[in-house]
């Protein structure tokens, strides 16, 4: 018997738990040649803002041992161009498309949530709270429980669609952040976003990235991500989407054991554009080989 890989997260029924992470999969179209989009659970678009954003100067990325740093600076086409140029493609794919978005004020977040709520092709919203709040001295929304509560509450009021909050790992206490977002009405939590890091060119005595710091992703962050997923899963009743350095099916299943209901594949898609599809197929194989009929029986089944 084929194992059942389907999961439901934030009211979204997914054929399998594998999603692609925001910022690593464009708007879906870029990968259509390499991935059967209908063989993955869902895909998440590049983060959207109200106005188009230029992003940072280059160099924007640098490889590090087992990982990469990026400082793209949230370059995106903006919500208007998204609706005009990217949404028609979403219509053609029978897989939930989740729109990731961010703002610099609570009003911007709420406005985006409202506009995305009105797009039938958008199945769910993922809010990136790892951005500075320009009205509060640039504190990153996702690093302060009250700020996080306020921004998620505003988004919650603006949408009836599934609302996923993507958590920043650059905090002292991930559990208190998760609880704030749950209290504010999030339907699910995705974690982790990238870890802030930097790389230095010794010979030039300069930072490698034009932005000086960037977000670390890839296999190097997986242990941190697993730990955070495990901590949050034990403390909060919401479904969790595990993210961080997933390169293969075994990595993905480790996140499920730690308490994630679904996973997102990010950096791996850069190396192998078909990674998300391969991982979903590999999970089915592992389940079959290990006599597991239903992936749901593995969620949080870590034995400690």
């Amino acid at each position, binding site marked *: 018997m084929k194992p059942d890989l389907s999961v439901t997260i934030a009211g979204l029924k997914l054929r399998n738990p594998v999603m692609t992470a925001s910022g690593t999969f464009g708007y879906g179209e870029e990968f259509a040649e390499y991935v059967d989009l209908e063989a993955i659970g869902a895909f998440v678009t590049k983060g959207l803002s109200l106005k188009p954003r230029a992003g940072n100067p280059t160099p924007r990325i640098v490889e590090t041992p087992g990982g990469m740093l*990026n400082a793209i600076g949230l370059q995106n086409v903006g919500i208007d161009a998204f609706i005009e140029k990217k949404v028609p493609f979403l219509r053609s794919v029978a897989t939930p498309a989740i729109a990731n978005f961010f703002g610099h004020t609570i009003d911007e977040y709420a406005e985006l949530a409202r506009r995305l709520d009105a797009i039938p092709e958008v199945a769910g919203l993922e809010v990136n709270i790892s951005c500075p709040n320009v009205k509060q001295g640039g504190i990153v929304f996702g690093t302060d429980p009250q700020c996080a509560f306020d921004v998620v509450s505003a988004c919650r009021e603006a949408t009836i669609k599934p609302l996923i909050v993507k958590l920043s790992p650059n905090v002292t206490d991930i559990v208190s952040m998760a609880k704030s977002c749950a209290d504010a009405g999030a339907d699910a939590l995705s974690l982790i976003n990238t870890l802030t890091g930097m790389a230095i060119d010794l010979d030039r005595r300069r930072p490698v990235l034009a932005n000086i710091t960037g977000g670390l992703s890839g296999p190097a962050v997986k242990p941190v991500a697993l730990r955070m997923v495990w901590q949050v899963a034990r403390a909060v009743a919401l479904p969790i989407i595990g993210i961080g350095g997933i390169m293969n099916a075994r990595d993905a299943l480790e996140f499920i054991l730690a308490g994630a209901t679904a996973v997102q594949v990010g950096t791996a898609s850069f190396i192998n554009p078909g990674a998300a599809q391969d991982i979903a197929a590999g999970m089915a194989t592992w389940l079959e080989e290990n006599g597991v009929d239903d992936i749901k029986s593995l969620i949080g089944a870590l034995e400690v």
Partner: protein
Amino acid sequence: MQFRSMIISNVEVSPGYRRMRMTAPPEFPAARPGQFVMVRVNEAIDPLLRRPFGIFDVGIHTPAQAGATSQPYLEMLYRVVGKGTAMLAALHETDLLDILGPLGNGFEFGSSGEEKMIVGGGIGLAPLYFLAKELVKQSPVRLFVGGKTRDDILCITEFERLGVECYVATEDGSLGDSGLVTEALGKRLAASGNKPRIFACGPNGMLNAVAGIAAKWGIPCQVSLEGYMACGVGACLGCVTPGHRHSNETPDYRCVCADGPVFDAAELKWEA
């Protein structure tokens, strides 16, 4: 497309520069000059990312053994600069590589009969041999090639064999004219009075100068750019370059990988 490729040869052509020939799928010879491939140098997570390489040549390899079937191949010309290329340099015949490509847009050839000038700096020559091979079928072609020393002047004999007239310049004067390749290009343009089409690949400073020369003479010029990229398909946005209308308020970033790597020089924003 993504495919497994077997190395046919991997030889040093000059100190620090190597040329690798590897097997390619039957569809691969349809690649256009100027396109590139993303190569995964091993299956491990370090180095994690693929490396982009211009396509130096494509063709059909006929093994020496009697009865062996012919095999499409692709070639890369690369410089050993870091961990990834050092690993590539250490690979041997029959070793396997995971390749994504051909990627990117490729050069526009222009009209036949019109004179073509190709300008290459150092390893920037990598995508220009495949280009020259196609261009000589329809036009007279001149190559202007520059480098710091004679070691940076690569594969000239191959170009000459195509019937390309080659002009060499080195900064230390160890081969050809002493000075920058762009000076040689400027002199030739001044002397000929023709309106050729320019194709260039090399360091940014050289491309900037070539774009300036082309603008001054009012002649079409395409440049092939390099960029730090993770994906090669337009998703990571790591390799962007500003277009001529770019400003922070009205972003006009182009992806070197998906919108390029070849751009009309007039479409880009060049540093003054």
